[in-house]
């Protein structure tokens, strides 16, 4: 199979370039990550992140033939040749396919991704009814791989001010949680023209999410709650 991979080592390269590789591999039953690890045996300078190799850790997010996804759960047989691999767009490149996720996690931290509850901790757990727990489905599964946020033009334009789809999905995960007591503060925090309202419903996030989550829907629910609070 033919590959074209984005290469950049800031210590030795003046500018990024695309390097061609050829790999004698039978695509059936293999994932893109398998091919990348075989390529790394050919050329050990090729750099990428990976860990769980089964779509749970979110480390090997990259731009695959122009579309963000996880290399470990992308079947090789589904890819058109030459397979073009680039780092996630919109973030600074550290080396080859590795990007600096600092800005992404800064936005994630800004929505306070933890339960705020000032009641004394109960003996066992803070309980929820099955119906209340149901609201967290489709929200808690996010693995923070960054595919959605780095596919979002609003984030490319304002990465320092727009929270991005991954952060907003998590914001709604805590707004929707009946055990959380900071709902109003959370809504206040997002009610400015940048943090949430830079979302123009482009829906690249929904298109690329490897876990098939729907940040646009979560953003819509946050807007609904803001309106219900206002009127």
């Amino acid at each position, binding site marked *: 199979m033919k590959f074209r991979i984005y290469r950049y080592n800031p210590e030795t390269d003046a500018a990024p370039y695309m390097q061609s590789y050829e790999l004698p591999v039978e695509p059936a039953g293999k994932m893109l990550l398998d091919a990348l690890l075989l390529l790394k045996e050919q050329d050990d300078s090729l750099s990428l992140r990976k860990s769980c190799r089964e779509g749970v850790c979110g480390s090997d997010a990259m731009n695959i033939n122009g579309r963000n996804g996880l290399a470990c759960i992308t079947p090789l047989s589904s890819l058109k040749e030459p397979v073009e691999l680039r780092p996630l767009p919109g973030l600074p490149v550290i080396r080859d396919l590795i990007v600096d996720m600092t800005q992404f996690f800064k936005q994630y931290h800004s929505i306070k991704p933890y339960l705020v509850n000032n009641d004394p901790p109960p003996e066992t757990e803070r309980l929820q009814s099955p119906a209340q727990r149901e609201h967290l489905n489709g929200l808690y599964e996010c693995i923070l791989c960054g595919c959605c946020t780095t596919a979002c033009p609003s984030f490319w334009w*304002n990465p320092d001010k727009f929270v991005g789809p991954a952060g907003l999905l998590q914001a709604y995960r805590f707004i929707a949680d009946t055990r959380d007591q900071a709902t109003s503060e959370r809504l206040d925090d997002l*009610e*400015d*023209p940048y943090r*949430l*309202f830079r979302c*123009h419903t482009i829906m690249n996030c929904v298109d690329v999410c490897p876990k098939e989550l729907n940040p646009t829907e979560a953003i819509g629910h946050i807007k609904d709650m803001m*309106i219900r609070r206002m009127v």
Partner: protein
Amino acid sequence: MVNRVVVGAHYGLRDWLIQRVTAVVMAVGSLSLGGYLWLHPHPGYDGWTGLFASAPVRAFALLFLISLYYHAWIGMRDIVMDYVKPAGVRLVIHVLVILALLLYTIWSVQILWGM
């Protein structure tokens, strides 16, 4: 002055909502005008003056135009927010856009009631 990233101006929801409401007004206006032209394909001078002689038509036409200008203001502001980073230049562009849209509003009143 320290140059820190500042967010938190609380008009995001209001402007987003106004943009939706003005869009509905414009959609209703456009469909109504389309319907009128479908029923009266060639209104001519008399047809148009006859239509706008009615006070509710004028009032709705003004509502349509004000919706258009307000909608345009939010759209223009969004574009400026994306592409013009220095706060001073941005403020000047915002003021110019607002003044132009206010002038258009006055002009629209003059056209609608001066016929």
